[in-house]
């Protein structure tokens, strides 16, 4: 039986109530809006890049505990990373929350704080909540102007 405490871990609740880097980023050179029409979650991600390194990142929006905390932890995680590193993290994170990681990914040290999302794999309908910010990040990096949706 899926475990609610495993889904709503303390770190997730903390970030959903007090999201980090929650602001409009002045002078952002990339931004994108993400939208989950299923539940109305909507976030905007702002980025500053130097060469191919993310030097600053922030977000704003409204959403459920999973999508808000995922966006908050994303900003902490990708700051200072190169685009290739951020992309690789998304791949690992995606495998983790969709349950394709066979349990090994949660122990992967490179995931860092992202490992708290391992419980999402037991709640398939919430995968889109967890990945919304990451899809939006990817869209912002590609400079796509259109709102990305999870549908």
């Amino acid at each position: 039986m899926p475990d609610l405490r495993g889904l709503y871990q303390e770190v997730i609740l903390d970030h959903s109530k007090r999201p980090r880097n929650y602001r409009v980023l002045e002078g952002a050179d990339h931004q994108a809006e993400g939208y989950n029409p299923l539940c109305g979650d909507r976030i905007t991600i702002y980025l500053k890049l130097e060469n191919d390194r993310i030097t600053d990142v922030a977000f704003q929006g409204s959403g459920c505990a999973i999508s808000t905390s995922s966006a908050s932890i994303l900003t902490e995680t990708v700051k200072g990373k190169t685009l290739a590193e951020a992309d690789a993290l998304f791949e690992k994170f995606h495998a983790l929350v969709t349950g394709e990681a066979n349990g090994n990914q949660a122990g992967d040290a490179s995931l860092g704080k992202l490992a708290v999302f391992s419980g999402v794999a037991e709640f398939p309908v919430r995968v889109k909540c967890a990945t919304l910010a990451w899809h939006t990040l990817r869209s912002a990096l590609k400079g796509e102007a259109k709102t990305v949706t999870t549908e």
Partner: protein
Amino acid sequence: MAITPQHITDTAIRGSSPKFDVERIRKDFPALQQMVHGKPLVYLDNAATSQKPLAVIEAEEHFYRRDCSNIHRGVHELSERATKSYEDARVKAQRFLNARDSKEIIFVRGATEAINLVANSFGRKNVQAGDEILITAMEHHSNIVPWQILCEEKGARLRVAPINDRGELLFDEFEKLLTPKTRIAAIVHVSNVLGTINPVREMIEAAHRKNIPVLLDGAQAAPHVKVDVQALNCEFYAFSGHKLYGPTGVGVLYGKADLLDAMPPYQGGGDMISSVTFEKTIYNSLPYKFEAGTSNIAGGIGLGAAIDYVNAIGMENITGYEDELLAYATEAISSIPRLKIIGTAAKKAGVISFVMEGIHPHDVGTVLDQEGIAVRTGHHCAQPLMERFKIPATTRASLAFYNTRREIDTLVAGIQKVKELLG
């Protein structure tokens, strides 16, 4: 709604009247007998779709096991049986709505298709550039988008009658928006988000004073209140079978015969013609003119069985029981701190939408699901209404006559658990 203890005592007595035995009724619904995540299912998502009584499931099964054939064209025994069952269902729908004639009952896929039919057929013929179509601020997307498409095509304008903070129509504003340019008023009978029962009789009278025809979207009304299209005098009425304890993929458009007769066909194909040459096609008479192609025969028969089932309980008994349950649930849920009910109209059907301070509806839905409680979370296909209340989404518990006070208590306990976990 203010509930005095006296009122609750009264409803408790009436709720246990021998006329309405909810425990016996629940036994008719196989899906209600299951455990979900180790807990007994508490199904409170009836505004999305209702569960089906055995009588409906067996009627569909009987068709596929015994009578499966196409209707209106075979000379063989199976086709005669199937045609009779399907046309009997049409008469049941006619009586259910108190329509004058069974040819005024068009079988469609559901309320959405019914509205699209009217927009495409009546709308395209009668709406021109500069004309107006009037809806309300509490419409489901299915009674917004078909009219928007029509307006865009014709250069017409969609007008929206506003509501107050309780979720009640501002009648004076509605009346003002009925202008000489208005070609049709398309109005939700009962709101799927707020539960508001609109004063449709008065709205229809106001529209008729200006010779404006009225379509009622009855998707949420037909399962819960008695509908009499002759007494209402509406031009069109739409409802879905699956919310009325019938199968998915079947519903009804009622239309006044003279209007339907004057309307062009909606789709072309078999069954809707009386003769076809490459030069000219003569269309079939009502209702078949609007039923191109092979219909959802099993679905129509299943809907007939659902209407029989509802009639056996009695719509007045259903409305009475659901009103009492809604009062009980409203009292219980509104007493929870830091929770706000969205939609507090004086006249409501069994829908309770709510928001919780600091907790997103999607998280509420996940926690409740683990308690075996099925609710809907999201914008409920009414995004403009969410914007009106400046909320992204709600959690919605919607009632049916097979729900119980015990289930409401389970919901309240579940909401407490949500607060413990996420509050």
